[in-house]
């Protein structure tokens, strides 16, 4: 049993690995900046998606509940921030008030969505959650009349950046003699949040609640017979996942300075789910890998494909945007064909899939 406890605390060689990871994380925004601030923004989005994917991992990976409407909670968080820190209503609350508020409201929505779906599993649950995601988006799109709450499809602009006293995350400033740009500041904020959610994920996995989630995923009837209140434990998974979605939404809002319903389409939910599945459901390093790959690859394609086509054919043959979706789809098919448990699955998930293949 000590193996479990040892696993969570880093050993001697782990310290070196951590130090290396830390150095790389520290270097990324400055290396990326050499190619322009756009690349720093891409790195930011990669980490934002790591955060989102790890939030969804609690629902899908741990509790085994297929959620196709995760983006709804992201949207709730984003709009809470946008409405409470922009000229739209003339309210300008500080971020440390809004982010927890967004998390709490998303959590509430998680419970709202969770409660009617408790008896559903698999495909049926996926359809209901998908519907929920769309409902939220359509609401945001149409809540500009009779009272203008969300400003409809135009979205909300001029959202305040995150600011601590006079220290704004939107401007470049000199820290310890190094010039740090706005996106670079957000990068470090996002890394801090990502580390927080990784620790939460790890600790939940090896806990009483984590075991209950796993038991429900394995055999719900047996879990009930063991005295687990499956209703509450499932709701807990929804609520936890949703609140992380809410936090991510708030940061997204502040970072972009602009939100509109367009950012919270079904495609977004599917992309986040694809990150979890493609990386390796329930396995934290796998999910991180999935999120980084699925954010970085399309961007690299976007920037790389145009010069490549120019060089090969002398002109543009395929529109980079459509090629992006093609490559994305192909990658999904190939991974699911050759590595059905994900690129970097946990040993446990590999066993489960091997079993169902028998």
């Amino acid at each position: 049993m000590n193996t479990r406890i040892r696993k969570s605390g880093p050993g001697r060689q782990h310290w070196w690995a951590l130090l290396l990871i830390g150095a790389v994380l520290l270097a990324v925004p400055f290396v990326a900046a050499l190619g322009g601030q756009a690349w720093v923004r891409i790195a930011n989005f990669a980490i934002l998606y790591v955060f989102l994917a790890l939030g969804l991992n609690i629902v899908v990976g741990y509790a085994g509940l297929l959620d196709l409407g995760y983006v709804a909670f992201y949207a709730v968080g984003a709009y809470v921030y946008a409405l409470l820190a922009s000229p739209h209503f003339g309210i300008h609350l500080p971020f440390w008030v809004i982010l927890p508020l967004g998390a709490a409201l998303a959590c509430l929505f998680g419970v709202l969505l969770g409660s009617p779906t408790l008896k559903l599993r698999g495909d049926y649950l996926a359809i209901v959650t998908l519907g929920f995601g769309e409902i939220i988006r359509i609401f945001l799109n149409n809540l500009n009349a009779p009272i203008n709450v969300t400003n409809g499809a135009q979205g909300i602009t001029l959202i305040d950046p995150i600011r601590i006293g006079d220290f704004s995350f939107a401007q470049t400033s000199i820290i310890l003699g190094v010039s740090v740009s706005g996106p670079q500041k957000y990068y470090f904020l996002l890394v801090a949040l990502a580390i927080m959610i990784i620790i939460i994920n790890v600790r939940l996995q090896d806990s009483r609640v984590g075991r209950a989630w796993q038991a429900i995923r394995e055999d719900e009837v047996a879990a009930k017979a063991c005295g687990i209140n499956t209703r509450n434990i499932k709701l807990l998974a929804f609520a936890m996942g949703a609140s992380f979605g809410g936090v991510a939404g708030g940061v997204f809002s502040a970072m972009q300075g602009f939100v509109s319903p367009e950012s919270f389409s079904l495609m977004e939910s599917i992309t986040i789910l694809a990150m979890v599945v493609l990386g390796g459901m329930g396995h934290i390093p796998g999910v991180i890998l999935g999120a980084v790959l699925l954010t970085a690859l399309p961007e690299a394609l976007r920037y790389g494909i145009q010069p490549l086509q120019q060089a090969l054919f002398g002109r543009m043959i395929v529109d980079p945007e459509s090629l992006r979706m093609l490559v994305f789809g192909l990658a999904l098919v190939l991974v699911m064909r050759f590595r059905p448990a994900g690129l970097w699955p946990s040993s446990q998930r590999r066993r489960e899939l091997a079993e169902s293949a028998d």
Partner: protein
Amino acid sequence: MSEHQVLLEAHDVAKHFGGVKALHDVSLTIRRGEIYGLIGPNGAGKTTFFNCLTGLYKNESGHFIFDGLRLAADAPHKAAEVGIARTFQNIRLFGNMTAIENVMVGRHLRTHAGVFGAISRNSATRTEEAAITRRAEELLHYVGIHERAHDYAKHLSYGDQRRLEIARALATEPKLLALDEPAAGMNGTETEALRLLVEGICRDGVTVLLIEHDVKLVMGLCGRVAVLDYGEKICEDVPAVVQKDPRVVEAYLGGSVA
């Protein structure tokens, strides 16, 4: 029989699936500290009775009084909470969890750490986790499979899986342990070991309700036996009497040859 001697009373429990009457007004009384056998031919309604008792099915009429309180129908986790633990006829372990983790899930009910405890890993949570682990180890010892503690449940032998299921059920600190055909598919040696285990559990103060096909095991182990046939209780008495009851003989061997 005085009040405090009774652990479970079933009153006219009935359950039907469409037109099939799986249970027809079954009443029985289980006393504290006994091993009570429930036998009957295939399809007699034994497992249906178990499922009603443990809240997996909702019985149409009738009710259960357990330890002086009426059981809520259709609430498995509540049945476990008041002290009814069960095993399943077709073993239902968490196959991709280790043996010890299976037993640790059984401790869920009697422990409290929530999300905040899990995330903060405060001293209360750590103490509780250590206690869960210790208790799970003890229980694996108790049923005799402690050397397989870190093997995945689905890799255990059939007999060991049965034992693990019993350990997981005991982890919920039951007053009544309901075993659904625990000896099914076991050979003579394994059955004998199981008999000793069940006797031990009973000696340690847990009342046992046993569904079993192995008549020899039931007759050797149980203080009293009830016989179900076509969803009706046809007989309830000490094994020696039940064995000679003409209705029981008929249920098992078919009607007398004219």
